[in-house]
């Protein structure tokens, strides 16, 4: 028992330690590089691999504290005690078995790497860190299994037996061709019994490769590929910065500032929230980060202004998706590169459509309707500070986006270094300037951060496994051929394109969607006479709505983790916003001048 407890803390130490190193190594690089001409050996790749350690052990921390995202408790929450107990047991046992399958598939991948070892840095071969995958999945299976019984002997039996069953199954049947439907029935059942999303997605990806007789190790390989993606370290680091601001009095200071600037009324707060969310997403490049960084600040402001909690969550979650169209968002830059359109052109092209989307969200989403507000009793008249004093009080917080964007745009730092700088800036200003964060607080913020990111990275990795199957089976190609043959008219095509992207975006991770779908769809769009810049804006506007759909719609997972609400609750709360943004995307796709006017005006 003490052993298991010790193990429990061990995962938090490992994951938080990895995060701390991910923060310190880029900073050391910034300092050492100009001074000594040499910094940390292979620093970027080292930091990327620390992300894998963070992901696996952060997920373990999330499991321990009950924060692994599921679709909701489902049948495990019904009144009938036997049914509820059975559902809980069934979901837990199945997840433990799937963890065993994933552990074995990961081990196969690690073995293939051990046979051709490549040094990462300082002579450490890559497989040493890759081994975090089988170890992590195995421990996860162990943990899930041990929760199934009350009595110790049974807990140990379940903890050992279920992952072992999965392991042996994967070892024995890998490479065989197994039918898909029994898996699908099983996975749908455990989904509604409250199994964690990552287990369902991972199980589905494995089952899809299995029905083709393709190697199961393809799934952990995709998970590895996305967790060590060069732009990914920015995610936990910007998240850390956001969580630190959320933990201290920064929320209050920014709130006061907004009250001073926008009058603090319901309309002013809604407009400010929508604009701030899109702006912050553009800066950080990840809309999930915005929810984490601003959700804790904005939700209390919105509820104080009279928004019911559900609508407040809906506004923050959906507005955070909008920044994708605003410079310098990562997807915008990525589209420009893949489609071979100059980046400056894309930057200019995104501005008006982004504003159109914000307007549609606020107006058509009903966020400016007074009759839907809850009556607010002015509990205490807040001390009205002058605007100048409000700005001075919140000066460190207002400057944070400048640190993030300034270091990147000036060319001083890579995206990863800029994220590390922003996190360090948050720590220093809140610890030293405001004295609102002590070492203990910093430690627990690191742990909060790793469990949020760990849970999300696990889902992201499994989703990429699914994406890889779609690519492997050539499914996007087939879909496009079919669409082209049935749609003779350009306007039909545009409407169907938006709908198609909503579905595709819900199934795929955004960077994968850009990389896979843009090269396939752009030639089709060109054949209909659509401008590549205009196409890019339609693409990104539609894909950003897909941030709000499961299973790949990350915003919902982030919001569910941030606000501690079930996925279904969050999904329902963003529905009006989804409708409004869909109308906005249609408007953008049917009015090409919104995208092309500004670039034409200012010269390409």
């Amino acid at each position, binding site marked *: 028992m003490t052993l298991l407890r010790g193990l429990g803390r061990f995962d938090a130490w490992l994951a938080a330690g990895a995060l701390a190193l991910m923060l310190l190594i880029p900073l050391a690089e910034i300092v050492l590089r100009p001074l000594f*001409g040499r910094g940390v050996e292979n*620093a970027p790749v080292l930091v990327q691999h620390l992300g894998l350690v963070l992901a696996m052990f952060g997920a373990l921390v999330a499991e321990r504290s009950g924060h692994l995202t599921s679709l909701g408790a489902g049948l495990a929450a019904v009144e009938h005690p036997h049914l509820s107990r059975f559902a809980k047991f069934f979901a837990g046992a199945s997840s433990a078995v799937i963890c065993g399958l994933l552990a074995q598939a990961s081990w196969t991948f690690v073995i293939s790497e051990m046979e051709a070892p490549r040094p990462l840095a300082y002579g450490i071969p890559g497989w040493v860190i890759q081994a975090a995958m089988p170890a992590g999945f195995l421990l996860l299976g162990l943990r899930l299994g041990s929760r199934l019984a009350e009595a110790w002997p049974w807990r140990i039996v379940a903890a050992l037996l279920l992952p072992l069953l999965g392991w042996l199954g994967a070892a024995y049947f890998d490479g065989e061709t197994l039918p898909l439907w029994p898996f699908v029935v099983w996975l749908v059942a455990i989904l509604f019994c409250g199994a964690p999303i990552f287990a369902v997605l991972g199980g589905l990806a494995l089952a899809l490769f299995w029905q083709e007789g393709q190697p199961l190790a393809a799934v952990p390989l995709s998970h590895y590929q996305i967790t060590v993606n*060069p732009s990914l370290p920015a995610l936990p680091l910007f998240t850390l910065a956001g969580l630190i601001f959320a933990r201290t009095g920064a929320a209050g200071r920014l709130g006061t500032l907004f009250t001073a600037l926008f009058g603090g009324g319901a309309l002013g707060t809604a407009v400010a929230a929508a604009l701030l969310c899109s702006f912050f997403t553009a800066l950080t490049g990840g809309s999930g980060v915005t929810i984490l960084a601003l959700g804790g600040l904005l939700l209390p402001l919105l509820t104080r202004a009279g928004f019911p909690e559900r609508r407040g969550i809906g506004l923050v979650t959906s507005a955070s998706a909008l920044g994708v169209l605003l410079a310098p968002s990562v997807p915008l830059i990525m589209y420009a590169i893949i489609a071979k359109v100059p980046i400056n052109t894309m930057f200019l092209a995104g501005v008006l459509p982004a504003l159109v989307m914000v307007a549609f969200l606020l107006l058509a989403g009903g966020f400016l309707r007074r009759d839907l507000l809850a009556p607010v009793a002015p509990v205490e008249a807040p001390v009205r500070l002058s605007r100048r004093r409000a700005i001075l009080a919140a000066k460190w917080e207002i400057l944070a986006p400048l640190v993030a964007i300034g270091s990147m745009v000036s060319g001083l730092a890579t995206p990863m270094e800029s994220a590390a700088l922003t996190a360090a800036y948050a720590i220093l200003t809140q610890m030293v300037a405001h004295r609102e964060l002590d070492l203990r607080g910093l430690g627990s913020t690191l742990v909060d951060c790793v469990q949020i990111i760990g849970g999300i990275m696990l889902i992201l990795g499994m989703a990429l496994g699914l994406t890889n199957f779609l690519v492997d089976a050539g499914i996007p190609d087939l879909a496009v051929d079919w669409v082209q043959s049935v749609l003779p008219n350009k306007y039909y095509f545009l409407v169907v394109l938006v709908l198609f992207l909503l579905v595709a975006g819900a199934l795929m991770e955004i960077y994968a969607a850009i990389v896979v779908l843009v090269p396939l769809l752009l030639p089709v769009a060109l054949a209909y006479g659509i401008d590549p810049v205009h196409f890019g804006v339609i693409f990104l506007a539609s894909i950003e709505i897909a941030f709000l759909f499961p299973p790949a719609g990350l915003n919902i997972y982030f919001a569910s983790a941030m606000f501690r609400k079930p996925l279904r609750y969050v999904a329902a709360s963003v529905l009006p916003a989804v409708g409004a943004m869909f109308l906005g995307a249609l408007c953008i796709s049917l009015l090409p001048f919104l995208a092309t006017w500004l670039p034409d005006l200012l010269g390409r």
Partner: protein
Amino acid sequence: QFRIGTLVPKNSLYHRQLMEIGEAWRKAEGGGKYLVYPDGSQGGETDIVRRMRIGQLQGGLLSVAGLEAIEPSIAALQLMPLMFRSWDEVDHVREKLRAGMEKKFLAKGFVVLAWGDAGWVRFFSKQPAAAPADYRGMKFFAWGSEAAQQEIMKSLGYTPVPLEVSDILPAIQTGMINAVPSTPYFALATQIYTSAPYMLDLNWAPIVGALVITRKAWDEMSPAAQKAVQAAGVQAGDKMRVQARKEVDEAVEAMKKRGLIVTTPNAEQMKAWRELADKLYPQIRGKLVPADTFDEVVGHLESYRAGKGK
């Protein structure tokens, strides 16, 4: 089933050659599923090698960046700057090394079907530059994963900035980097030249590639298919090499029309480059390129040049 991953663009010459090899395989085997995944849809070059190792892919058309993950000595063909002066020299040395190299790949579990290349690496920069000293203050794009190369650059006083390929264009626009080593074809395709319009006409190093398949996939083929695929591979390799060399000239012409400024180093500057290379070789030998392969290449080049001098 036969699946091949590569970073080459869909419908490019390289992609078409891969499809022709597939046609030969299918004809010899009397059917079967043959799939090419272009545009890096299966991941980067090292990811493609990983997917070959686990058996998800059977083959890959890769440059040295990926081939190196299988057999490090292949670096001899790409990572020794200014070692080769012309395609003839590259061809000569590759022909000499080929049998030994193919044996090494076989020992690592891979069969080489075709050898190709993709042009010379040249320097594209924001500011005009001709001599090594002109580049000293500049920040260079460097492959994120290639630590040893970066150490060498740092030791010579250059500043490598490790980035992803997709970050090159924004990085050069913001000034995070101001020089990019790139083939003209790549510079044209990615528009690097619009932000870094000065190209030094110096054949720094060739980009060499190969189509490799796993030994397992090779062994599972019928003898007739092996023969057909091998013949198709040789033919595809010839076409890829001829075309790549033509594309370099075409790419430079196309970029010149849109504002590229080509700088040709004079004799003195050329001498400085050679001196720089001579300083580099001891660091590359035994570190980036195995010492014996390095010496082998130098030996072949010396005898080739001596033979031509006669």
